[in-house]
Every structure is written in C-alpha cells, then in structure tokens.
C-alpha cells in the first residue's frame, strides 16, 4: 500500500501512514493539538493549517468549502476530519 508522511508540527512527530488515511485518524492517537467537535465536517472545530504539501490532500468538498468560508478560514486551512492524505509529505498544525 502506498505510504505518506504527515508531520504534526506542534508536537514534532511525523507519522508514516497508508495513503487514504484521514488526518483525524492519526492526530488524536498521536496527541497533536488539533481538536474535534462534530467529527463530520459541520462545526469547524478541527480547522488546521496545512503548512506544507497541501496538494497531497484530497480536494475539499463543497460542504467543507462552505464550512471553511463561514469560519473565515485562511489560505491552506482544512478540516482535519475531512482531509485525506493521498501521498508524499505534508505538515500540519492547529489553525
């Protein structure tokens, strides 16, 4: 299975994950500072900043785009409960 690396900058840990993994599946277990509310792309609690490799995440859905807009999210901010890691290296931190 294709692998990818996701680095959680706030805790300085890189996790090697199978392609297709959602950030939420990793960040909670590793103890990163991204926090979750509804866990289904509605509340915006888990907005994270993708500092590197944002092109290696799945494109945001129409729903995710709307939630990001209403929460006035900045450039390269994503919902950690929605974004799936496709490959390569990405770095994230709490927004």
């Amino acid at each position: 299975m294709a692998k990818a690396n996701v680095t959680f900058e706030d805790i300085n840990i890189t996790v090697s994950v199978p392609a297709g993994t959602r950030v939420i599946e990793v960040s909670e277990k590793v103890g990163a500072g991204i926090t979750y509310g509804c866990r289904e792309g509605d509340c915006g609690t888990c907005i994270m900043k993708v500092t590197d490799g944002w092109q290696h995440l799945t494109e945001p859905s129409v729903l995710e785009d709307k939630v990001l807009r209403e929460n006035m999210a900045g450039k390269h901010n994503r919902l950690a409960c929605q974004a799936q890691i496709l490959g390569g290296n990405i770095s994230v931190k709490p927004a």
Partner: protein
Amino acid sequence: MVDSDNNAPAAVALSERVYWIGAFDPDLRSFDIILKTANGTSYNAYLVRGSEGVAIIDTVKEGFAGDFFARLETVADYAEIKVIVLNHLEPDHTGALPELMRRAPQAQLFISQKAQTMLKALLKRDKLNFTPVLTGDKVSLGDRSLEFLHTPYLHWPDTQCTYVPEEKTLFSGDVFGCHFCDTRLFNDEAGDFRFSFEYYYAHIMRPFKDYVIRALELIEPLQLDLIAPTHGPILRDRPKRYVRRYREMSQPSLSTDKQAKARTLLIFYISSYGNTRRMAEAIYAGVMSVAGVRVSLYDLEGGEVSPFVDLIEDADGLLFGTPTINGDAVKPVWDLLSSLTVVNLKNKLGGVFGSYGWSGEAVRLVEDRLRGLKLRVPIQGLRVKLIPTEEELEQCHRFGRELAQELLGLREARVIDFAELTSS
C-alpha cells in the same frame, strides 16, 4: 414594566430614541439546565429609532412574544421597521423572530458571519434573506447608526455586539448579562444583582475567556453611556465598571513574573489499597526531576470538585490516576471529569494511570474521555496489575519525566509508523 392605567405592557425609554421592548420571566428557576436563578430572568429586546427607520435588536423567548409585540406596538409601527439585528440566535432571543419577520417582511435581517448555518437550522427555511456582518460593518438609520462588533463564542459561535455611536450605547447580547428579574430594569434601581452577574459569567462566559479578552479589545475603546444586555439589568450607572470586571475575571491568575516559562501539572488520583497512590507518588517524583514544571499531587478523596475545577482551569497538564472497579473508572474521577464544561481544556496535556485487579479498563476509558474533552493525550497511559513492583515504579517515574518533558516541549522529533498507534 406595566402601565398603571390599563395593565398593558409598555416600552421603556432608555433615551429619546432607544426603547426596551423585552419581557420578564420571574418564574424561571433553571436556565439551559446548567444555571439556577432564584428570581427568574428577563429577555431584553430593544428598539432604536433613526430619522430613516427603526431597528429591532434581538427578540424574546417564544412564550413571551405577546409582551414583546405589545411593547413594540407602543412605540413603532411594523411598517417602520427597516432592520432586525440578531446578536445571538439562542431560542430565548429568537423565539419571536418568525412572527416578527411575518409582521415586518420588509425588514432586512443582520446576523454575524458565523450565524448563517445556525439561522437556517433555526428557521428551517432554505431561502432566507439576511446580511452577514463583521466588525466594521455599519447600517444607517439616518441620524442613528448601527455598528457591528464580531465577538464570537460569547457564548455561542454566532454571537456579536451592536453599537450605536450617536447614543454611546452597546447592545451586548449575553455579554454583561445575568439572570436577574427586576422590573425596575436599570442597574442603579434594581436590587443587588452582583452575585447573579458573577455567577452568570462563571457559567456562561468562563469557558471562553480567550474570546472574552478579544471582545474586550473591541469594547474597551468605545465611549459607553449605557450597556444593554439581553438578560438582567440595563447598565447605565458606571457601565465601564462591568467591562473592567469582565477583564479582571478573564485574566489568567496563576502566572508569575519569576517563573514565566514554568508549566503547571496537576496529578489527581484515588486509591483503594494504596497501589494507584504509589504509582501517583512515583510519577510525581518523576515530574519533579524535570526543572520548570510546577507539579501538585491531590488525592480526590480529600477534596471537593469545585476548587479542583478552578485549579484545572489554569493548569497546563492534568494526570488522572484511577483503579478499575467492575470494569470502570471510579465515580470521584468521573464526577470531576463531568464538571469541566465551565473551563477551557483545549490543548491541555492529559495522561492517565492506575492499578487494577484483573481487566484494567479504567485507564483507556478515561483517556478517551480526555480526548473527548479536547485534551491531547500523546503518551499512552500506564497500567499496573495490583501491587507495583520496583521496576513498575521506575516505569512510573519515567512516565512522569516524559510527561514533564512533553509539557516543556523538550521531547525530540520522532518518526513513527501508523501501525504503532493503531496496535495499542
């Protein structure tokens, strides 16, 4: 306020152009499940009259809509209403909104940027005309104007305040409010509501202190003759005093000048045969071996929940030690963990440990709860079967050291495989 001639509710003038058109609810004893009130509350709604139209700012709880409309009708016609502002969408302030929109269909609705999906969920309509606003946005009523302040999370994501500069009046939503019902309405005439003001802050605003401070940055520079909140007395006597009190209550109280970089860690434990206690003491010693962490050790049997909640609010890290009894953590641990909604726990460091007899579920259950409370739990909890050996106490010591290092950001960069996380 009741008109003495015919007992009909009437609007109360706050100035020549501003009126209170809310409702009193003296029988309420419990609000939002989490608050008590010994003399009820008020749902404060307001009307501002400009030379080119009228604005309604907030409404009331649905069951009190009759009083609201009756008061409104004593000072304005529905056709004059140009603007409806919702500073907060909670049902106690929007209960009369659908009927108000029906009676004044020409009125434009102004809500905060973050209120949009909430408004749709509240009114259950797809096609809604509204204008989302942020700090700096303004609406003119001719010789009066409304300026919006984006003050989210006080105490919902949608909350905002509205300022009328020509009146030096702030319509603050739930901020500076309290559950206190007094028909004399003004803070200089109402009974002593200091307790209600502080109690309301402690239960409603306290979890959002960071957002309170951000809102105060917008509010403190304003010229204020009057603060008009959505509950409790209207603050016309020394309104800035309440702003200062909010500032005082929102500042962190534990920080010191001498140890500005120190981190605080609290260890709570409870123990039936002393085994979890011995683990706690070894972890405590491990934490103390790292300079820069102020650590405290507390036996839950010797304390009450409320003061512990106060300690937790200012701490950077929390450890919980619990035995497993009949497959669960014990009640004093859950009691404390179920009392933390009044404080902000986001990003605090969490950890769990405990001795057990045969299955030891408690540690994992409490870890899951800590994650649910938005703590980060980066180091897997420590479980010891019955009496800890010297080697296991050494493990506890290391656990304490690692947590202290984590708290200080001293752990080195690591690369791990996903399988390591999912196998535990």
